[in-house]
């Protein structure tokens, strides 16, 4: 049997296993349906960046750094700073990741986290204006270091944590003085992403890699304290009631994880 065929057969067996367990109210790792794996956050892990954080959800581990540069504003927003999010699914993080140009999963990850951060208005890009044609650019890089499932929530958490660590650069003669700072960002809202997947008739949060491999429907919902700030459906479909119920769960989980981030 070829590798692809083996994968297909295995995925059918795994799906039966995971689904039968869920029917009995259990998950492979013993968690409840609405329970996250242990969450860990380490801030300021990269000394060369103005902000950084390493987040772990279970064994999934994502590093996000935030670095400033002087940039040219976009022509339609000449007084606003530039904010860019990039992501790397490092080949070391999973046997399924490869070197080479970013694949669609990686681009979707970067753009999903970007929307959650941008929409939450945690960053005030208007304050990044320096002078005509010169603004601050904030470049955030997502490095997925280990992928054991749910890198979207882990990356969003690392990104938000990196912003709570973010030092604002000192500007002199329209240039950044490296190593000197004018203050900290002090975020007023903290966007947190919650990923839910559906297997059979069951919705569960924070899927492991095995659970992800047999997902029927996936949705990421990012929330701030009071608002939904981004949604992204992956594979599958869901109905209106499921979406609204999932939004309620996302608010609850977001508030739990925000507490860990603040502690």
């Amino acid at each position, binding site marked *: 049997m070829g590798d*692809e065929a083996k994968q297909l057969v295995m995925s059918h067996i795994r799906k039966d296993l995971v689904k039968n367990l869920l029917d009995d109210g259990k998950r492979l790792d013993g968690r409840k349906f609405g329970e996250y794996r242990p969450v860990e956050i380490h801030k300021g892990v990269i000394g060369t960046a103005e902000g950084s954080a390493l987040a772990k959800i279970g064994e999934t581990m994502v590093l996000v750094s935030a670095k400033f540069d002087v940039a040219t504003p976009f022509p339609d927003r000449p007084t606003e700073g530039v904010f860019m999010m990039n992501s790397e699914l490092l080949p070391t993080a999973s046997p399924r990741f490869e070197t080479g140009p970013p694949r669609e999963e990686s681009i979707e990850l970067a753009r999903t986290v970007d929307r959650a951060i941008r929409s939450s208005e945690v960053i005030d890009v208007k304050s990044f204006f320096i002078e005509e044609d010169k603004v601050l650019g904030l470049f955030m890089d997502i490095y997925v270091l280990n992928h054991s499932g749910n890198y979207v929530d882990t990356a969003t958490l690392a990104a938000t944590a990196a912003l709570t660590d973010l030092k604002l650069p000192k500007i002199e003669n329209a240039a950044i003085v490296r190593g000197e700072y004018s203050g900290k960002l002090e975020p007023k809202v903290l966007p947190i992403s919650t990923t839910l997947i559906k297997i059979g008739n069951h919705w569960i949060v924070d899927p492991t890699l095995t659970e992800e491999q047999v997902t029927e429907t996936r949705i990421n919902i990012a929330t701030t304290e009071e608002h939904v700030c981004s949604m992204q459906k992956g594979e599958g479909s869901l*109905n209106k009631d499921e979406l609204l119920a999932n939004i309620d769960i996302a608010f609850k989980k977001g508030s739990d994880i925000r507490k860990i981030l603040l502690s």
Partner: protein
Amino acid sequence: MGGATDIQLIVDGKRLDGRTAEQLRNIKIQVGMIPEAEGSAFIEWGGNKVLCGVHGPRQCLPKHMANPYKAVIKCRYMMSPFASLEEHGRSGPSRRSTELSKVIKEVYENVIMTEQFPNTQIEMYIDVLQADGGTRTASIAVAAVALANAGIPMKDMVSAVAVGKGGDQLIVDLGKIEDNFGQSDVPLAMSARNKDLLLVQMDGLLTREEIEKMLEMAEKSADEVHKLQVKALKDHYTGEKEEEFKL
């Protein structure tokens, strides 16, 4: 999405182009204008012009990508370099188009009866010739018609519409300026019969209550789009009003 806007999006209860909050832009759909494609359709949705061609089912290449249980769906959404009123864009895939290709593919994986065509691929090529906000929903709507024209069996027809918030009001079918300067944009695709959500994306800030209201508005508007899709197909097959293809 900037939150605070410098542009007044709603004046005297009317939107910039004179529409009411729940009014769609004009939509015109033509069917079957690309004879070399298995199926094709063209949509004019406000200032958007989007062409979709469908090829297949045919042998899946490269062969190792083939699935012995079902057809593989491939989707390529692309924005032409001349589609925007401003600069001449770059040709080829961008990060945005790569993401959109993925989410559109994921819409159709739910409805195309792929299990009928093992080891094959079904290709959807979507080209945005002119863009005016809401190209992804226009693309999904036109792709459904092209797939039907290709005779590819689907469990349900797919309709799409964006809902959003601009000038502190909930609105359907955001135009380009509303998209750029509004407070939130929620592009949705849903199956015509049971209203399953097949595309859900969102940016901006919304409360749960606003989202609930928006889903209701979207269902109504998606129904209108669905009627136009069905009418375009009927007109095509009954030979009524068969006009020459006009861009």
